[in-house]
């Protein structure tokens, strides 16, 4: 099934447009059951970069959304209406994200938007969604410290990824010395701030923590890696917690392999390296390095198998990998469908009210729930890189019985932030301060 072209459905039709519409109508009549008028479809905005630096990660999410919408239409759409995807390209340009979001909501009249990857792009579209009162589903793990009425966060908050990963290293591998390495921007800086506070609360002395930032797209890792090697030779078990983002990862791992740092000596646990990133890499020297996610392609459940099969069929590529943010979109999209069905309306206000409490089975055997703070419950997995570029789940022992962790918008380990609470159901507030009992608190 193909998607109706945009020109066919944009409101004022030109003469040629009418002709095309008529032709389309005839085609529809001859092949399908009852033809629908153009405004009978519900539009869904997809706001992912298809060009520029972020295209590497975001293009896949666009394809995943198209597949999900396609599948929903095959099941008869939502509330008897077909869904239609409106794809725009914000080109990895943060201000353009806001512009394109406005265009989607006001011009294309979409009912909901799925999009954004970087935190800065999300921050740039927030005012638009607030002003025009629409819904954004954000599928990527992020630094937390945010909860907005119009945004639903289906990726992991720090307590669903970073902290469990550190716990795993501390308890399973007896790590005592920590390198917090990251790319120099908001997500690594906030995550590392939280992790530093967490480690110190666990009694790790400041001298055993090394925080280190590198620029975007950094490629000459020789000095950094040898610094890590030196830091790791102080006689205590050392690990690297990596929030290194995007393109810088490949040269980083190559240098680790070349300098002979094995996972058994200094393991690296990464929060931004998934199946997709490993696809551009010879993974044999990296076997045993870790990643923490809420989904791995290798987890063997019937739901996941079916999803991967559908993905391969949809992309016509039996080698395309699936990854964590894709699953987040899968959960988010299905939650939206259920909320619309519950509210019996596409009206954003009604859907926003209906979403908290909606449950959706995730692909790894659990059932995720949308919480009043607009985050979801997720299982946490620690996986080791294997020679075939996939991850082998090492924690929990049985991935299908993983405990679900509720997403916490405001970290409990940062001063200021630990007093804040988000509850859009009872308190109707995203940053309620439990101490001053006022809405509108700020995290420091």
């Amino acid at each position: 099934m193909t998607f109706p072209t945009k020109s066919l459905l944009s409101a004022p039709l030109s003469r040629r447009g009418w002709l095309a519409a008529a032709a389309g109508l005839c085609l529809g009549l001859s092949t399908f059951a009852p033809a629908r008028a153009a405004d009978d479809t519900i539009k869904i905005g997809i706001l992912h970069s298809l060009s520029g630096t972020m295209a590497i990660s975001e293009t896949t999410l666009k394809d995943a959304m198209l597949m999900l919408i396609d599948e929903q239409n095959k099941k008869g759409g939502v509330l008897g209406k077909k869904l239609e995807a409106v794809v725009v390209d914000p080109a990895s340009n943060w201000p353009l994200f806001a512009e394109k979001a406005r265009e989607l909501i006001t011009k294309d009249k979409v009912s909901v938007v799925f999009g954004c990857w970087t935190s800065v792009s999300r921050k740039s579209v927030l005012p638009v969604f607030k002003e025009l009162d629409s819904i954004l589903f954000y599928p990527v793990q992020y630094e937390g410290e945010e909860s907005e009425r119009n945004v639903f966060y289906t990726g992991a908050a720090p307590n669903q990824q970073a902290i469990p990963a550190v716990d795993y290293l501390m308890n399973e591998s007896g790590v005592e010395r920590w390198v917090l390495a990251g790319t120099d921007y908001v997500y690594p800086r906030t995550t590392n701030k939280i992790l530093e506070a967490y480690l110190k609360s666990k009694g790790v002395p400041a001298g055993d923590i090394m925080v280190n930032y590198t620029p975007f797209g950094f490629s000459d890792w020789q000095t950094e890696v040898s610094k890590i090697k030196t830091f790791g030779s102080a006689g205590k078990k050392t690990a690297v917690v990596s929030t290194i983002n995007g393109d810088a990862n490949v040269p980083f791992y190559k240098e680790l392999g070349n300098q002979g740092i094995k996972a058994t000596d200094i393991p690296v646990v990464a929060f931004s390296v998934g199946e997709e990133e490993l696809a551009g890499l010879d993974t044999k020297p990296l076997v045993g390095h870790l990643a923490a996610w809420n989904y791995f392609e290798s987890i063997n459940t019937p739901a996941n198998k079916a999803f991967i099969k559908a993905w391969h069929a949809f992309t016509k590529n039996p080698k395309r990998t699936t990854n964590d943010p894709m699953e987040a979109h899968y959960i988010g999209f299905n939650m939206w469908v259920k909320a619309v069905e519950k509210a019996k309306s596409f009206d954003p206000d009604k859907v926003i009210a209906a979403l908290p409490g909606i449950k959706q089975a995730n692909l790894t055997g659990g059932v995720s729930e949308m919480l009043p703070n607009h985050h979801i419950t997720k299982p946490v997995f620690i996986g080791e890189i294997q020679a075939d570029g996939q991850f082998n789940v090492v924690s929990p022992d049985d991935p299908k019985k993983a405990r679900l962790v509720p997403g916490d918008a405001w970290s409990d380990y940062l001063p200021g932030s630990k007093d804040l609470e988000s509850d859009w159901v009872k308190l109707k507030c995203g940053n309620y301060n439990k101490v001053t009992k006022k809405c509108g608190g700020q995290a420091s």
Partner: protein
Amino acid sequence: MIPRLAVPLRVLSRALSLLAAIGLAAMIATATAARAGSFADAVALFAAGSFSDSADAVSQIETSGNPLALPIVNALHDGRLYADEASKTVVIKQPDGKVINAATGAPAAMPADAGVVRLNNKLRRRIAAALGSLTLLAADPETRIQAARAVYKSHDAAALPLVEAALRKETNAAAKNALGDARAAILLFKPDAAEADKLDAIATIGARGDQEALALLSSIPGNLSPAAAKSAQSAMQAIKSRLALWSMVQDAWYGLSLGSVLLLAAIGLAITFGVMGVINMAHGEMVMIGAYTTFVVQDIIRARYPAMFDYSLLIALPLAFLVAGLIGILIERSVIRFLYGRPLETLLATWGLSLILQQAVRTAFGPNNREVGNPSWMSGAFDLGHISITYNRLWILCFALATFAVLLAVLRFTRFGLEMRAVTQNRRMAAAMGIATSRVDALTFGLGSGIAGIAGVALSQIDNVSPNLGQSYIIDSFMVVVFGGVGNLWGTLVGAFSLGIANKFLEPFAGAVLGKIAILVLIILFIQKRPRGLFALKGRAVEA
């Protein structure tokens, strides 16, 4: 009464002693049975599925003395050990594809539901230690050295008798050395080792003088005698000061290596921008095209002639030169030749071209990184003194210098080089002498682009092959050419290496982000002082 009682007592005592004897025999019997059974039980632990069970199994198998111990641990290490949870059978898949039962060694069939026994890092460390103690007496000296190193790392007290036995038998000097280190490491961590042994051990480890030795010495448990603690301290101090010296050498090497990357990236631009004066923002995309050519070549080789993989880069080099060079000529003929003498328009046009090329590659190959493998001769590292030098960086350094030399020779000794220099020095005069200047322009731009293409082949070995590859090098390339002096190849060489070394000496103190900023500030200050860069061209053509 008494005699009557005595009889049964005697009977009783005899009966008791008989019972005891039977019991003892039975105990001995069960004990042997248990020992025979314990190996099978230990092997069956692999089928339990948890990592801690597997670790227990490795420990029990390691000390069992069973001839199957080594094949099992080896198979586990290589991912050839399969276990079936339901039937508790564990089998080894031999490298030749045959399957044997791990507990008995008898040929077996692969159970239908068997899965590879999973590993985690803890288990991998356990396996390395077990492999070490199992192969200490191997026939091959290299294996023995590896084994000794594994024991050195794990410094497990249980391996001490084995190490000492091996040490007595050892004839190979290197292996003996490694075994001595292993013994010293074990003694250091053995709480009840004699004082003199500990002091000896500290001296042995201290003499190694590398980072591993430092790590080992600083992790000694705190129950040392004052004398031993003091000698450990001084050994650590000695290692630290020696390593500090070596780290200077290491930084210098990193600097050279970064310089060679900068040189490679900039050398094509030194032609198009430096010699021709075209502000070529699409230069980075030529590098990217070279890298993608490498990817295509490797892809074809992987699919059709896997044995040739090690030569893939050599095949890619001329192809990358041709592809990038031809695209360069096309760009010159179609766009740039109309813009000579209009730097601003050239800048905008080539910037636009760079975006077009990026998006074209993104459409053709997809936005994801493409995997370009390292041939075997470019993987790994070797130790020189106390620094480790990675092969890929070493080759890239050699390659950059070779490219530079060839380019210099082309300019100096060929007819094309002569014409090129003539045209850049005085276009009108060159034209008057019968040189087809526009043809030379096109070829020169093609040469610069082609060299950028072969730089891409080298850079594909250390960086991502993605549509954004070129963007990350364009700023650095301009920086090098401007710093070195526009129009001067030697300036580019010196500029690249001095920037590389300065950057790498700043990085350990300032960090990667600040280091880069500091370099940019230094260049701005330098350009203020010497606007024409390190080696300014002098002459009428330039003044004009």
